[in-house]
């Protein structure tokens, strides 16, 4: 019989670049202050509920930092929180929607900037749920006993590509505008170890589940292709770059008509976790769900309410309104804030939920808050 170790989250960090930017400050940085765009922006902001966010852009909209720098700052914050050095890590898994460069992998760039010693790397790609894929990888290796300690960082810097210059020369519909006024920059990181923190609370990872329904759904969130289906010759790599730009292929798009299906599919996945017993609805102390807009918060909360009539909003944590939607980084940025503000007590459970619209992926994890286990009668 194989015996595995357990995996605990023992350090938490985040980095949000620059000062908070309110809704009026968005257009100053991203542009798009014509009447039509302003009206679209207003309606999107009204429904998503985001009041402030952060950009790695100065007031003129010029970049101030690299995505890999955001990642390293969040990692260093998590390492400081745990009281260890980069050289203590044996594995690093990163998640981002788009790194700063096309090649090599984001994890390689982050490791190079972070320093430390030799370590295993994974660059998880995708969109929001890639952070959970990265977490799953490190947790699995720690449980196997292959590594005593690893870190996970999810980092996003979409603002560069949300500026007006990317939206000129073609007709941008709602699919191209939707994410522009949703997404912002930031990074979140956690440290994973096989033993709990010796002197304070840790979060034990009970399980992580991720599932893709791409077999049953078309592409929803995308960049680098024309239309909503891939075909030979129809990606940004197949055509002249100027043609790709003119066709609006570098704009991040969302088929907003599919989002109701996404919410429904996410709820069905949650129901399945309840059915198979992974989620015990009688013991759901904290729910941290990533969503892009408060509209989906209400849909998700109502669905949970049907299962857990006693669920009150106090157990539901989100910082979307103040930290913005940072894609893959959002779940760790929310977890870090919930952790830092002392929401958790030993024995409580935390459900993490990350629906990803890319092509319908869903990730869930359950954490349990554990007290330090410094045994009595320890050796001198």
């Amino acid at each position, binding site marked *: 019989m194989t015996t595995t170790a*357990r995996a605990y989250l023992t350090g938490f960090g985040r980095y949000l670049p620059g000062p908070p930017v309110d809704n009026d400050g968005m257009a100053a940085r991203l542009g798009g202050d014509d009447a039509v765009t302003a009206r679209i922006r207003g309606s999107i902001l009204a429904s998503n509920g985001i009041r402030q966010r952060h950009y790695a852009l100065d007031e003129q909209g010029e970049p101030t930092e690299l995505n890999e720098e955001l990642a390293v700052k969040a990692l260093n914050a998590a390492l400081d929180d745990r009281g260890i050095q980069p050289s*203590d890590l044996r594995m690093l898994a990163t998640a981002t929607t788009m790194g700063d460069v096309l090649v090599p992998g984001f994890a390689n760039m982050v490791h190079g900037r972070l320093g430390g010693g030799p370590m295993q790397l994974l660059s998880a790609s995708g969109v929001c749920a890639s952070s959970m894929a990265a977490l799953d990888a490190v947790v699995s290796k720690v449980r196997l*006993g292959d590594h*005593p300690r690893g870190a996970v960082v999810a980092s996003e810097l979409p603002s560069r590509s949300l500026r007006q210059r990317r939206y000129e020369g073609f007709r941008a519909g709602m699919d191209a505008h939707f994410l522009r006024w949703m997404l912002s920059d930031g990074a979140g990181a956690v440290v994973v170890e096989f033993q709990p923190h010796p002197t304070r609370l840790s979060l034990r990872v009970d399980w992580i589940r991720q599932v893709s329904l791409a077999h049953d759904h078309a592409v929803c969130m995308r960049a680098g292709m024309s239309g909503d289906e891939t075909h030979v010759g129809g990606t940004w790599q197949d055509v002249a770059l100027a043609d790709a730009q003119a066709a609006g292929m570098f704009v991040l798009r969302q088929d907003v008509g599919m989002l109701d299906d996404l919410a429904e599919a996410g709820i069905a996945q949650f129901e399945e976790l309840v059915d198979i017993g992974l989620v015990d609805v009688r013991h759901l102390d904290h729910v941290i769900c990533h969503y892009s807009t408060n509209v989906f918060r209400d849909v998700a909360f109502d669905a949970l309410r049907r299962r857990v009539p006693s669920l009150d909003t106090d157990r539901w944590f989100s910082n979307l309104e103040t930290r913005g939607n940072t894609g893959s980084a959002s779940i760790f940025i929310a977890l870090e804030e919930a952790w830092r503000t002392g929401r958790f007590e030993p024995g409580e459970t935390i459900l993490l939920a990350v629906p990803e619209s890319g092509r319908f992926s869903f990730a869930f994890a359950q954490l349990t808050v554990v007290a330090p286990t410094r045994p009595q009668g320890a050796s001198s």
Partner: protein
Amino acid sequence: MTSATSTVPSTADGTDPAGASLLERLGEVWLELEDHLARVPVLQRLDDGTVTLEDYMRLLFNLRQQVIDGSLWIARAASNFDIDHFELRAAAIKHAEEEHRDHFLLEADYVALGGSREELRAGRKNVGSEALSGYLFTYASKPNPAGLLGAMFIIEGLGARRAAQWAARFQEVLGLADNQVHFMTYHQEADGAHTGDMEAILTSGLIDDATADEIVRCAQVVARLYALQLEELDR
């Protein structure tokens, strides 16, 4: 009995008055060892569930410095068996070959626990390990050191009978993965096979009475020094 300075007991001292077999006499030595182990602090903590990750890492650290020597003294013993002891020489060569990579397993466990391979390799033997290695190398340098079968009986017996128990208990108390106790669990299988090979030799009729006495005496000394090595962690 453990204070004797001679490494080869006289036949008069070593002969069991009740005429017990060699295996029975070694069984008595094993029971003495068990008594000693029960008084070793780190094993007591392991037993009562208060053992720490630091304890386990210290134990590996201390064992490693002696494990390195294991296949060396067996190989030296092999080189000192003359042609009349061909079977023992063959067994020792095979045994040394099988063991000479064991320290890599231990090192992998230590690193998997978050320890530094460099620090581990820079370690030195503790006072018990010094005494044990010194005794074994000296013994292995003698002509036809058949008494070392007693040392193997103790050391392989610990691997076969106790190491896997210790590993399971460390896993239970500290929540360790198999990959972090590989050295100890491996020895249950490997040393179980070695113990079987050795018992075949011990009961084969190849061992005369004088050699039997040497084997028992060597087992007594090694049992005491092995326990001493576990008592003297880091010193």
